[in-house]
């Protein structure tokens, strides 16, 4: 198991600027606002993934995952302003493939308005993703979200969120391009079109996501939530761009303050950009996830959980159709 490897950080200065800004904001919050206790979460888990690369030719592997999260909340005693900073880390080790990890850092600020019924907020998050198995996936991302939650009544909460994301990929990306004349490093011929393998030095994506959420509190232990979302991804690689829309249903049941069961079902339609000469691609994705957890000790400081997730992707392009089942169990510590 190799936790870190040396990378050529093309955006390292930006990463350092972000860290510096977050540190400055933290110090500012510490100076002007009282702080709540630090929330620390540690999660250790392991499981089996029957399609690690989300491919029509699946490669399966056991894996272990180590996650940590630190959250510092701030609040103002003179106003309804709340804020928080978080730093999350996740490392995943596939036993039959190479590992990957994610670093996330960000902050959020929100304000209680309309006698407490409306809570608008803003969230910033920067993400660093490293993948030894698929280096072309390595990227750095920046997200800014504006959101608002509205307490309609004691049983119903509505939410709206708009997110803008920027993903800068670090390594050269190889993709297939259809041309009539044929050019590039590797060439072939399919259905009268020349197929060329093209390597581009950089890839940049911009993502816009709109999300609407409805949460119904059915009883003290049962919460149902429906989320609709629309995503638009623009990429420097034409064939990567898409429009997607989807629905997510989530039901969470807490029993005796000790057991938690949740069922999540999701459907998503992804319509990729039509590129001249290239077969059009559209995907229909369905997934279901069931999680059962058992908490121990007061205030739910420790939990054991088991989770099963099944995902099925049907694509108009045969090679892009696949399904995946992930079974995972683990421990969660909350401090």
């Amino acid at each position, binding site marked *: 198991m190799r936790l870190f490897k040396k990378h050529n950080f093309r955006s390292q200065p930006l990463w350092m600027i972000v860290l510096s800004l977050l540190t400055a904001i933290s110090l500012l919050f510490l100076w002007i606002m009282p702080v709540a206790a630090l929330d620390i979460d540690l999660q250790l888990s392991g499981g089996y993934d029957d399609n690690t690369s989300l491919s029509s030719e699946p490669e399966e592997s056991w894996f272990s995952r180590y996650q940590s999260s630190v*959250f510092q909340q701030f609040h103002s005693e003179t106003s309804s302003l709340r804020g928080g900073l978080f730093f999350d880390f996740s490392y995943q080790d596939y036993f039959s493939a190479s590992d990957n990890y994610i670093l996330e850092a960000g902050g959020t600020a929100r304000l209680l308005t309309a006698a407490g019924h409306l*809570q608008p907020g803003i969230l910033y998050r920067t993400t660093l993703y490293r993948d030894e198995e698929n280096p072309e996936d390595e990227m750095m991302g920046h997200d800014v979200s504006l959101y608002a939650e509205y307490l309609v009544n004691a049983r119903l909460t509505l939410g709206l969120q708009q997110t803008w994301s920027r993903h800068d990929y670090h390594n050269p990306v190889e*993709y297939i391009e259809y041309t009539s004349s044929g050019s590039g490093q590797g060439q072939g011929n399919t259905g009268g079109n020349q197929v060329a393998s093209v390597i581009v030095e950089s890839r940049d994506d911009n993502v816009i996501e709109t999300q609407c959420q409805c949460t119904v509190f*059915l009883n003290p232990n049962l919460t149902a939530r429906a989320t609709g979302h629309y995503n638009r991804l623009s990429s420097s690689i034409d064939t990567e761009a898409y429009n997607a829309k989807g629905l997510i249903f989530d039901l969470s049941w807490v029993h005796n303050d000790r057991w938690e069961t949740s069922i999540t079902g999701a459907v998503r339609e992804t319509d990729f950009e039509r590129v001249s000469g290239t077969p059009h691609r559209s995907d229909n994705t369905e997934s279901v996830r069931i999680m059962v957890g058992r908490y121990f000790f007061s205030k739910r400081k420790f939990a054991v959980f088991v989770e099963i997730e099944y995902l099925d992707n049907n694509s108009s392009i045969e090679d892009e159709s696949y399904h995946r089942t992930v079974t995972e169990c683990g421990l969660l510590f909350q401090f």
Partner: protein
Amino acid sequence: MRTLVSILILFLWILIPGAEAMDTLLGRVTSIDHEGGEMIVNIDDTSVPHEESSRKDSTDARKGTKVLFTPGTLPTHVKEGGMVRLWGEYMGDGSGNFRAQHVYHAYDNVGNDPTGVRSRLRKRRGMEKGIQKRRGLGGR
């Protein structure tokens, strides 16, 4: 997906009957006595109309409702000035006091995730190996 829908309907059918057994209140906390197990809440919304709540006059309403809870059970993120969602029942002794069996921060969509950390942990699955694999035709 039919299986999923069937499971969800069955799940709701089993669990929803208990939904009306308790009153639900939404309000803003003005003061908390952690050791005494009491807090004063300005009630904004009562999902289930109740004789006790309707008997309270406007003066009492402005002062807030006394909510009783078991000491030591209050979630750490419930603070003065914050919105709370209460499940329980009015005491029925004419005092207008409310005995809360469950107290949640109103902006915790799921009671076990007050900081949103678990939601973020789950979201990471979308960043796992392969999810951002090449989308171009012929990509693996």
